[in-house]
């Protein structure tokens, strides 16, 4: 399985929804504390397990997240630690990039998510406690959702309801929003500690998973959010990111500060179905390909990006 070495510490990895061999990697210098950042666009070589870099974009501050546009195959957006959102176009030469710089957040932008159904808008989650809604054709945000009491770490669009999204925050709650409504429609006090990530089940639009600093992943049904549907324990440290499989109903993948990437089936008693500990530092980014079933990628503070097929050893060559 190929590995890609980045000069900076990795923060996020995303598969392209248009090209099954393309990924975007967000990296930040000095663990994201202080320094520059870089967005890598890499390609999986068709001949052998090699990852080639297509283009890289340097930023003044660290890049915390990256998301591909669902409408334009060459466009991606990057969340920058200085509070701005940069829009890049890989079809243009690097000197023409970025094509947009959207600066509205007061603090670091930590999460991005592109609307997979409507394909025209995206959300940004920031440490200034707010979530903003954007489109590529407008220089200013369409809406600002400010209700959280602390940093918002992650946002996720609902795969079925194009106007519904969820936000996970450091105030230990997950809020469900509808862009047509002025405020949040539901508040799930899911954990006793900060919630770092949330994701909707692609096949059951009422199921949402939350990952928290308390090392657990909880699956909630929004119709009855008092009690979680399932609690997944197994990580040794805070769970940084989770993602439901686009291909399988019950499958979700998670990465944690215990340097492992875990595969879960929450409908099974023994939910942990796979564990990959190829990273030698915090594993902070993981993604499952929408186009290729079973293809997954992960990155971490050890400055490595792994792409492997589920069931195989990421470090195998």
């Amino acid at each position, binding site marked *: 399985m190929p590995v890609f070495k980045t*000069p900076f510490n990795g923060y996020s990895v995303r598969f392209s*929804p248009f090209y099954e061999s393309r990924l975007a990697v967000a990296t930040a210098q000095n663990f994201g504390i202080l320094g520059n950042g870089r967005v890598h666009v890499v390609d999986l070589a068709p001949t052998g397990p090699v990852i080639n870099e297509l283009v890289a974009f340097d930023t003044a501050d660290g890049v915390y997240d990256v998301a591909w546009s669902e409408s*334009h195959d060459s466009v991606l957006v990057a969340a920058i630690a200085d509070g701005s959102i940069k829009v890049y176009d890989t079809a243009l030469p690097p000197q023409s990039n970025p094509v947009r710089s959207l600066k509205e957040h007061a*603090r670091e932008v930590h999460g991005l998510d592109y609307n997979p159904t409507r394909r025209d808008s995206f959300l940004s989650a920031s440490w200034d406690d707010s979530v903003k809604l954007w489109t590529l054709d407008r220089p200013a945000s369409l809406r600002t959702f400010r209700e959280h009491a*602390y940093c918002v770490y992650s946002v996720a669009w609902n*795969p079925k309801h194009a106007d519904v999204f969820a936000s996970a925050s450091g105030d230990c709650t997950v809020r469900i929003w509808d862009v047509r409504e002025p405020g949040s429609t539901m508040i799930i006090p899911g954990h006793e500690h900060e919630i770092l990530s949330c994701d909707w089940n692609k096949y059951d639009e009422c199921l949402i998973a939350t990952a928290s600093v308390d090392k657990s992943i909880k699956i909630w049904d929004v119709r009855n959010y008092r009690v979680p549907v399932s609690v997944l324990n197994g990580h040794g440290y805070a769970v940084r990111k989770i993602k439901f499989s686009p*291909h399988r109903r019950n499958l979700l993948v998670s990465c944690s500060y215990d340097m492992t990437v875990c595969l879960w089936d929450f409908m099974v008693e023994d939910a942990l179905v796979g564990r990959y500990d190829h990273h030698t530092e915090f594993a902070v980014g993981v993604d499952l390909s929408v186009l290729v079933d079973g293809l997954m990628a992960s990155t971490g503070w050890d400055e490595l990006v792994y792409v492997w*097929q*589920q069931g*195989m050893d990421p470090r195998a060559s």
Partner: protein
Amino acid sequence: MREELVEMAVKFLSNPTVGTSPVGQRRLFLEKKGLTGDEIDEAFCRVPDSTPSVPFRQDINSSQDVQSKSFASVQPQGAPQSSQPLVESMLTVSRPSRFSWSYAIVSIVLLIFSGAGTSMLLKKLFLPRLKSWIRKVVLEEDDDESRNSKQSLYKEAIKAAKAAAVASVDTAKASLQMLQSNREEGRHFDVLLRRLGAHIAELRSMSITVQRLESARNASYKHTDQYSQRSSQNGLSNLSKTSVVHRDYPENFPGQMKFRTSGVSNFDSSVRPLSAPPRPSVGQHPNSYMEIMAKIQRGEKPPGIKDINDSPPNPNQPLPNPQITPRLKPWEIARQQNSFGHTQEKVFSPPNGESRQPWWRRNNNTNGIADVGNGMRGDSYGLRTDK
């Protein structure tokens, strides 16, 4: 002697009313009538109760009686009037005639009137003079007193002013002393503050070294650093709020704690043209996380940070037309499949139609058919990858 005149004189003298008058008046009256002395004496001899012409020898007793009577009646009059009754008594002694009460009453009335007159005189003339004289004296005394009192007031005012001046001088001296003492105290405080600052710097360095030693053995993560970022930029508070869990790691293991100091991430970016995609740097071992944190706390910038201008060169750059139409998501396909009620072929076949699949498609469970929407399968997850 003229008998006729003597007879008339006798008739005259025998008149009772004449008898009350003094002898001298009778004799005078008779003399005025033209009688001689001998005739008058003859008349007097003929009158039965006529008074003796020789007053001294025969009427001494009667005159003494008259005098005693007159004295007794006049005595209450007082001394100034004593001369008058003496005169009258002498007059009456010369003629041994009978005094009646009328003479006493008249004398008393005369005395009373004289007394009243003298009193009136006194009141009108002497008393005003006395009063004015007394008033003058009194006024002089009052002036003297007022002059004395004014002088005393002035003296008192002067004394009070002197005392006030003295007191103000004292207070000024006291305030000057206080100012001096405050200055001295301020100097002492400055010295104390400098020493405290030195102590704090020493404590900080000590704590940093202690935490470095701890971090070499610890591995943990907690997102509570976000709280510390918002509270202060002090590195000490950041470090103190992270939870530390012991875990065995090699010494060269990079640090585990995540921090983000606010306010230090903004750099002045200079214009730097983007070069061709650089090769990833190789051979540079990443610095320890704690070392980077310590550097930042000391105010040093970690090495390798460049000024990058990442602003869009053309903010109005139009977005390109999409080259590929968006594909349906697997779950949307599954929804369609469920609604349509029949399965479709796998949509994830390569666009170029090659039978040989790229390396990332080769996996254990692939059989060319997407089993979307199904439940879990025991063998579909492949091997459990253990360490």
